[in-house]
């Protein structure tokens, strides 16, 4: 049995997609375990862990399992000895937390619409695009004065934002294409050799972003 870590999550992009990109970026061999039916997880695999934090996504590394998506980035960065991906100094670590906090606010706004009910989705879409557009404006402006979102080197939060840039290029492209720095940022990550290879591989699953049963966009 290989020494691969196992990333467990639902068979959607969701919270795990930036983690999948991160794993590809750091070139750590992993098993991309996807749960398609709730019965595969609830009452089955979730019973094999004895942590009070048992949840999806998880990262299993031999006998040790990490829960909470953000914690998984910290675990992985240290595992491959690349702590700079968490912020290389006080200034960048502070900015990592700033952008991460902002992404949390973005998610609250976006997912209120995504899971807010299909009947009212069209009516609420414009307001949602305006609100989320403000965040993309912030990220675009930030990229005008630094190479990456937190400074001159890449950190894991760049992957968090990339995922939503990618999703909006499908959902409402004009929100992104009107912001040249975001377009360039999206291309820059896509063009990393290991990312480019991943994007062209059968392991990369482009859709759905979210659960198609409840989500208004997937």
């Amino acid at each position, binding site marked *: 049995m290989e020494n691969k870590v196992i990333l467990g999550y639902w068979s959607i992009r969701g919270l795990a997609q930036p983690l999948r990109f991160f794993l590809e970026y750091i070139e750590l061999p992993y098993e991309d375990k996807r749960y398609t039916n709730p019965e595969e997880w609830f009452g089955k695999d979730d019973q094999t862990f004895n942590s*009070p934090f048992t949840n999806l996504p998880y990262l299993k590394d031999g006998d040790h399992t990490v829960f909470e998506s953000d914690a998984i980035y910290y675990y992985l960065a*240290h595992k491959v000895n690349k702590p700079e991906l968490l912020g290389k100094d*006080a200034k960048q670590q502070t900015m990592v937390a*700033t952008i991460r906090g902002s992404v*949390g606010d973005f998610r609250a706004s976006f997912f209120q619409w995504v899971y807010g009910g299909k009947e009212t989705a069209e009516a609420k879409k414009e307001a949602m695009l305006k609100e989320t557009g403000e965040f993309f404006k912030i990220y675009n402006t930030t990229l005008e004065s630094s190479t990456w979102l937190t400074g001159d080197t890449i950190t894991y939060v760049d992957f968090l934002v990339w995922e939503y840039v990618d999703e909006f290029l499908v959902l409402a492209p004009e929100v992104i294409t009107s912001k040249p720095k975001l377009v360039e940022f999206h291309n820059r990550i896509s063009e990393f050799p290991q990312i480019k290879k991943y994007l062209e591989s059968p392991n990369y699953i482009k859709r759905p972003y979210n659960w198609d049963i409840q989500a208004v966009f997937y």
Partner: protein
Amino acid sequence: MGDKVVLGYWAIRGLAQPLRFYLEYLGLPYEDKRYYKPEEWFADVTSAPLNQHVLANLPYIQDGDELVFESQALYVYLAYRANKPELLGQNPKEQVALASVRGVLQDLFKGLIALFTIPEDQFEAKKEEQFNQLVFWIAEKLSKFLENRKWAVGDNLTYIDFQLFEAEEILRNYKPEAFATLVGLKNHNESFANLPAIKNYQASDKMIARPFYPPGMYRWG
């Protein structure tokens, strides 16, 4: 004004209360700038220097020319400012544990807000069921995790303990009998309240005991 950092926030506990405890614990001289009305904040955020920052929001830290936004980032900034980076987790194991607790705690705070923003006409009827559905099971997870631990990441205090304490205070005040059953949280709550800097601050007239949430906007605070 000298060397003081400025913490800017509404005149409630909210996101700033753990930061106030944190500043007291760090022993950093600070100004606790409180905004009592939206107009006061609007005036500041639309003029220099705040209007030059795309991320400008409450809470913020102003440190000379430096401005930091997003509550989680303020803990990072202040730990370095006070030369106490150990509060961010001293090694990978502590940093991972901190991030894990932070993730679950954020779900708890979200659940509390969802509970307290139930429409006024439905709150009384739904509050019991929603407390259990939105809040209590997450609090139980955290409580279980904290059993047999001194602090959130283990033996050492980190900034997430300050946020945990605030969640405990909300639970303890809102539903004391339910809180009393959460042994892990209860013990953590007592240990934290007994830290000298925290004890002194809570006894002082600088301490805002209530409200936790903006008055009038939430069903409880």
